[in-house]
């Protein structure tokens, strides 16, 4: 069994999906953690919120991420992971669909599985489209083109300001919230499915995986969704 065979069989391909998926799940924790720093600026004067923060903590964290060589190297890995996850996912979806050329007149639909388990390809595609927009909004500006909306403050880009400007448009906020909902459902299936693919079959452990998975799938996308909402409504910034 060569490495190639190991990763190109049906289970091997799934392993790639599962591993990259889990890697992205870990990344999302970092991402949501750093971005949640904007809530330090929440307009209430109760610890740990400081209405006069003006995104200072968030900007420092963003600066650290952008200026640390190790993180930048990991970023390359992140992009590789995302691309692998997307390409493999789309290919698998196409391949799986090709296994039944003549469909059923009456589908099984929700009598055997959850709609989001069956719609992983669609949900993933929605997230991918959002991702392009999202990268254009922030990553491209921060890393490549620069932007007037993120002036230098104390030697750091004012990413906080960039967010404020971006999320001042209602359509952007709506798109971001919809993307977070897609992400939530994508994770609801993907989280536990990744562990199953890795071979977790013990019921005791699977119960934990499922509970953590549901918690993660709700909390992380909810936090993300709150960011554009909070900025648009002026709760922060």
């Amino acid at each position, binding site marked *: 069994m060569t490495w190639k065979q190991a990763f190109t069989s049906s*289970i091997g391909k*799934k392993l790639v999906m599962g591993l990259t998926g889990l890697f992205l799940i870990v990344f999302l924790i970092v991402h949501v953690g750093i971005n949640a720093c904007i809530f330090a600026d929440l307009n209430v004067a109760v610890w740990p919120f400081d209405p006069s923060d003006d995104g200072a903590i968030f900007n420092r964290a963003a600066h650290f991420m952008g200026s640390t060589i190790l993180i930048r190297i990991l970023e390359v890995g992140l992009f590789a992971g995302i691309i692998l996850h997307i390409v493999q996912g789309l290919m698998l979806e196409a*391949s799986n*669909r090709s*296994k039944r050329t*003549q469909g*059923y007149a*009456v589908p099984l639909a929700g009598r*055997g599985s959850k709609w989001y388990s069956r719609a992983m390809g669609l949900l993933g595609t929605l997230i991918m489209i959002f991702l392009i927009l999202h990268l254009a909004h922030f990553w491209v500006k921060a890393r490549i083109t620069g932007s007037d909306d993120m002036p230098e403050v104390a030697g750091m880009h004012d990413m906080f300001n960039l967010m404020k400007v971006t999320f001042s448009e209602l359509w952007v906020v709506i798109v971001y919230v919809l993307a977070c909902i897609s992400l939530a459902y994508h994770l609801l299936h993907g989280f*536990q499915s990744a562990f199953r693919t890795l071979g977790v079959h013990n019921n005791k452990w699977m119960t934990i995986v499922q509970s953590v998975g549901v918690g993660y799938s709700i909390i992380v996308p909810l936090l993300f969704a709150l960011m554009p909402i909070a900025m648009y409504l002026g709760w922060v910034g």
Partner: protein
Amino acid sequence: MEHYNMNLNLKVWRQRNTQAKGSFETYQVKNISSEMSFLEMIDVLNEELIAEGKDPIAFDHDCREGICGMCSLYIDGRPHGPWEQNTTCQLHMRAYKDGDTITIEPWRAGAFPVLKDLMVDRSAFDRIIQAGGFISVNTGNAVDANALPIEKDKADASFAAAACIGCGACVAACKNSSAMLFTSAKVTQLALLPQGAPERKSRALNMIAQMDKEGFGACTNTGACEAVCPKGISLTNIARLNQEYLGAALTAN
């Protein structure tokens, strides 16, 4: 149980042979007793069709007691019909009421080509078993049956997986036409037994290779297979197969 009679409309997939293009035909059946089995209802229709000089509907069936795995039928969008953990041959007409319309389709998967009407070719399952669904022990080689005690929990779990009847409902229900539940049931049965240990790695690798070659899709853990399995084969088996496979793939030369 009070019984009653009913008239039904049937929408049945008719296809002359593998190459032919099929289509749905509609039939009326009258005075069907609620005590009949679903297949007996088709028997009644077939007798009428023959009397009218038409070709009867071809469908697979044999034991008619829910164990041989030969019957199939995708009834109103669900393999083996509406009842839980049931085969088509054990579905009885009291599941229906007068005036119902029932749509009957064959298993649909590229790996299960239609032979005629509702009959499909499931020989791909045999070839998956040929790839490794056995323990290589020639007749006469065995040690005493009690020489190897087996933990009862493992023996029971092995038995639960071995209950698979190879009907193919899992493939029919899966949106990817994956045969993972079938394959995993056999791998699990043998992996849990000490007798199966020597061939554990090659079994998982070879059976998956054959499954892929037969044109079944990849598993995406949707759980539809488990929901329609007439023998309640658990999705857990698939996770175990994944573990068996990955362990083997990462360590085999």
